[in-house]
């Protein structure tokens, strides 16, 4: 008893309080680092080769149709005053463009990642909730999210509001294969080009039927030729906020040069790919980019297990892998020469 009293203040003897927790104490010794570098190097070279070969096998066709060059068929459409301008670009393939082929449009020097631009949309509105619009104070309120495309000059609410929606890409493409000097249309499939989550959850149409009624007392975005409920005249289901092209556009790009999916070539005889031959791409040229030194392009591409063509990733893997192997040799030499810390 007295012994216990005498040591009442003695600290507990646990591994934690005495800082003796069992631990792994790694150290950067030659036995770990050098083989580690070799393994990483070899693995990276392996991955690099696989990526590079795969990437090489992906076929890509890029066509710039901005019309800067005077000999370009789209040169005439460069001027924005020309309305409903169409231009045709011909190209030929000498071998099969393996399917499924994806058609993209690409913009460069276009800052969809600009902060104010990215913020300029109304997430609630795009979920189909237009109840705010009935509120008489809607247009009087100070601008919050959709600035400066919230209401038009007559204080009527713009739906869908905001910069992103307003600037929606509206060039159209039609592809024809020239068979015996007659044009055979290549069917372009616009279904399912947007993310499933965007189509089913993030964007919803107002539950009103017909859709048009939900847009009463609103105006279309200023730059749009048609209101949202008439985006796709061919398919009534592809209208409103769940129009596939609209969804693709609304998923704004991270970088100023980007491509977005336009259509897939998945139907009929072209499902296996574009056969060798001559093609004509008919472009409905509406979208102005020359003012901001932008470029527009159309990209045809197929994909692999690692996505689209990207030689860069494979090359980086190869370079890093080789550097690792080289460094491991350097380290080995240094280690052999200095043999730390045997001198002690």
């Amino acid at each position, binding site marked *: 008893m007295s012994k216990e009293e005498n040591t009442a203040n003695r600290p507990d003897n646990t591994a934690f309080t005495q800082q003796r927790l069992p631990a792994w104490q790694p150290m950067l010794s030659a036995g770990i680092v050098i083989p580690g570098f070799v393994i990483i190097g070899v693995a990276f070279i392996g991955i690099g080769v696989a990526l590079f070969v795969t990437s090489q096998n992906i076929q890509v066709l890029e066509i710039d149709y901005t019309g800067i060059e005077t000999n370009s068929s789209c040169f005439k459409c460069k001027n924005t005053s020309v309305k409903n301008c169409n231009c045709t670009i011909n190209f030929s393939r000498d071998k099969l463009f393996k399917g499924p082929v994806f058609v993209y449009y690409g913009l460069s020097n276009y800052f969809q990642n600009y902060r104010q631009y990215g913020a300029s949309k109304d997430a609630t509105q795009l979920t189909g909730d237009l109840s705010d619009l009935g509120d008489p104070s809607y247009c009087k309120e100070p601008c919050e999210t959709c600035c400066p495309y919230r209401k038009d000059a007559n204080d009527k609410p713009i739906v869908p509001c905001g910069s992103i929606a307003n600037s929606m890409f509206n060039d159209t493409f039609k592809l024809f294969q020239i068979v015996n000097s007659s044009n055979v249309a290549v069917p372009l499939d616009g279904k399912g080009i947007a993310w499933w989550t*965007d189509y089913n959850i993030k964007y919803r149409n107002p539950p009103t039927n017909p859709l048009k009624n939900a847009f009463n007392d609103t105006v279309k975005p200023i730059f749009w030729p048609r209101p949202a409920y008439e985006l796709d005249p061919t398919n009534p289901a592809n209208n409103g906020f769940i129009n596939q092209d609209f969804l693709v556009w609304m998923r704004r790009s991270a970088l100023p040069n980007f491509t977005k999916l336009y259509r897939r070539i998945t139907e009929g005889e072209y499902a296996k790919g574009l056969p060798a031959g001559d093609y004509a791409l008919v472009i409905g040229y509406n979208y102005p980019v020359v003012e901001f030194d932008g470029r527009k392009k159309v990209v045809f591409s197929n*994909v692999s297990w690692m996505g689209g063509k990207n030689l860069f990733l494979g090359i980086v893997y190869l370079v890093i892998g080789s550097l690792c192997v080289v460094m491991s040799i350097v380290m080995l030499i240094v280690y052999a020469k200095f043999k730390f*810390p045997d001198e002690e």
Partner: protein
Amino acid sequence: MECLITILLSISVEIIRLGNSFYIDWDRKMYDARSDTPAEARTTTLNEELGQIKYIFSDKTGTLTQNIMTFNKCTINGKTYGDVYDYLGQRQDVTENTEVVDFSFNPLADPKFSFYDHSLVEAVKLGIPEVQGFFRLLALCHTVMAEEKSKDQLAYQAQSPDEGALVTAARNFGFVFRSRTPESITIMEMGKQQRYELLAILDFDNVRKRMSVIVRSPEGKVSLYCKGADSVIFERLNPSCRKLMEVTTEHLNEFAGDGLRTLALAYKDVDEDFFSRWKQQHHKASTALENREAQLDQLFEEIETDLLLLGATAIEDKLQDGVPQTIEQLAKADIKIWVLTGDKQETAENIGYSCNLLREEMNDVFIVSGNTPEEVKQQLRSAWMTMKPDMAEGMVFLPEKILGKVGSALKDEVVSGEYGLVINGNSLAYALEEAMELEFLWTACMCQAVICCRVTPLQKAQVVELVKKYKKAVTLAIGDGANDVSMIKAAHIGVGISGQEGMQAVSSSDYSFAQFRFLQRLLLVHGRWSYLRMCKFLRYFFYKNFTFTFVHFWFAFFCGFSAQTVYDEWFITLYNLVYTALPVLGLSLFDQDVNDAWSFQHPQLYVPGQLNLYFSKMAFFKCALHSGFSSLVLFFIPYVSMSDSMRQDGKDLGDYQSFAVVTQTCLLFTVCIQLSLEMSYWTAVNTLFIVGSLLLYFGVTFTMYSNGLFRLFPSAFSFIGTARNTLNQSNVWLTILLTSILCVLPVLTYRFLTIQLWPTINDKVMFKARQAKAAPPPPSKRTRIRRGSSRRSGYAFSHAQGYGELVTSRRFLRRPAVSHSSHFTPMKSTSSFIPMGRSAGYSPTDGPHNAKAQGVEGTSLQMYRILQDQTL
């Protein structure tokens, strides 16, 4: 955002400090079982500074020593007593198991006294005349007061603990000093009461280094008993003692080698006629109005001749446990130790030797004890000229030259050889004056050990302040008593020795524990770890936030400088708060490069802390550079792999939300891997924290990007589906792998090559430790520290002169209360005011500095001032 980081930084720092303080409180190896006192961190803010201490200022009494004097050995008539031998004649160390001499034959024996050599008590019982004479001398020749509380219960009031120890030894060996009057001394000689007539006390002073009494025995024989420093006694011996003197000298050297304090004892029988003549002269001299002191000295010289040597005593000023080892360790860790004590120079110096602070191997130990500024200056000058002979002879000391620019720290001079410096309070007062302080500091810093003796509490603080002012170094003061408080408060870190003498020191300290030796654990283990952990934490914390932020810098060039964030807002919020908070806390609470045993084994590991190598501007710069590189990788690898790229299903990959998810995942992997690299002590908790954080990240991310949350708050969770749609892509994972590995590879290469080519002490010890992983480090050699015997140790008088006169003057009887009080303090011109206890806190001399001491302990001094006036 910045605000959040700052708050998180300070919160994390506080948690780490708190944790490390708790470790100190919890440490069983800093727990003193005898007094049941654990170590206590009374502050949580200074832990990492414990790893950067450059100067330790230590009190002596109660800190280095226990303030217990024990009669340890003696030599009588050429034979030593006190050592214990086994059957084979081998000398044994005294341990707890050694049999103690039984003093039960003597009812008046002090039960606390212990002695291990049985032969001495046998010799006393046999009645060998030299042995009896030896103890008779000890019982008679002193200025101790006895107090008989009840029958057989004696208490001694000695002016110095040394004297008390000697009289107590005599008491136990059967020569019990019982009482004294101004004219007589009563002792029990082997159970027989004897009353000696006290004829004269030839008092001690610093010059004489001896004291004598002249007594008339009950048989009527007049004898002179003398004890004093051996050198002084040996000069005055009868030539017949030559042989004995040689043997005794040998023994004295041996004692000195053990760090004991010695006194030589001698006696002579005085011729009655001679004595009566001498007595008359003495009376005349002591009443003379002029030259009294000189006349008395002359008379004393006359009678203290022709002595017969009896032997010598050896007294141990008991050090606290493990003090020499601790000081040796701290010295190896390149910590400079300054002892600031109120004790006499002799005592302080002696303790300096016995606790390994001053060493025989030292090239020189300078003594500065001048009484005028010029003298002090001269002594300092000759000291540094010895140490730096290459400095031009007669060069005038120019503070500006040494100090360099105003405001910069005084540099350490490199000196070949080891030196010590002893300075007394009187000289220190001059040395601390503005004109000389730099020269003093400069000189003192060249020495390995500095001892300041006879200093006042105020001077202690002044010395600390001086070092703090001119050396950009972290200082620590350790002490146990009220007189150390000023010093403890002045230093960066104050340590109080608890459980011994009052609480003033402890209550004004930052850390407290019961034994001086715990200081090495506090500094070399806890301090070093705390510093290491804090530096690792800061470096990593800056790294992860710089990396996080710099990515935005690169992104700005690609988003039109619109301040668009790269990551999801939720990620930004949770990054510091959740995803990376625990792993770095785990690192900074558990990390240890090598364990405590190795830290002790290699005290040099402490040096990087003193130079603040782990978190200097250079380290900060490296950390920023590293972040710059990481952020480049973190931005541009995802950039090139995602721009213009497609997913496996043909949809485009380069949208902002996917890019954000990929970059933030890369970032998190990178900082986690980086953390793993920093970690040298990987416990299960660390694994849990790191893996847990990553899992938590994915869990939280998938939850926040889920359909349900979006339906509840559409505008708050706009990243819906991004995690699902992005993290199922093989090229995304290849990007993450590439980025994380690429961020780490150069660091690995750099570290590996640095370890190979320019290994630091840490690397070497870590390597050694890992090699001997299973085996604990070889136990540090606990050899008994013996020093060579070339130097004679100090003689065992720690008190001042003036007592003899008092004892014979009857004056002390006027205030009987005084003899009961432990504060029995007569004052002549010099004295300590607490003779029994500490003798540390008084002003040294007759000089003008007395004023300070009087200010400190004014009341008690004034009280005795009256007494003194009456005495004179």
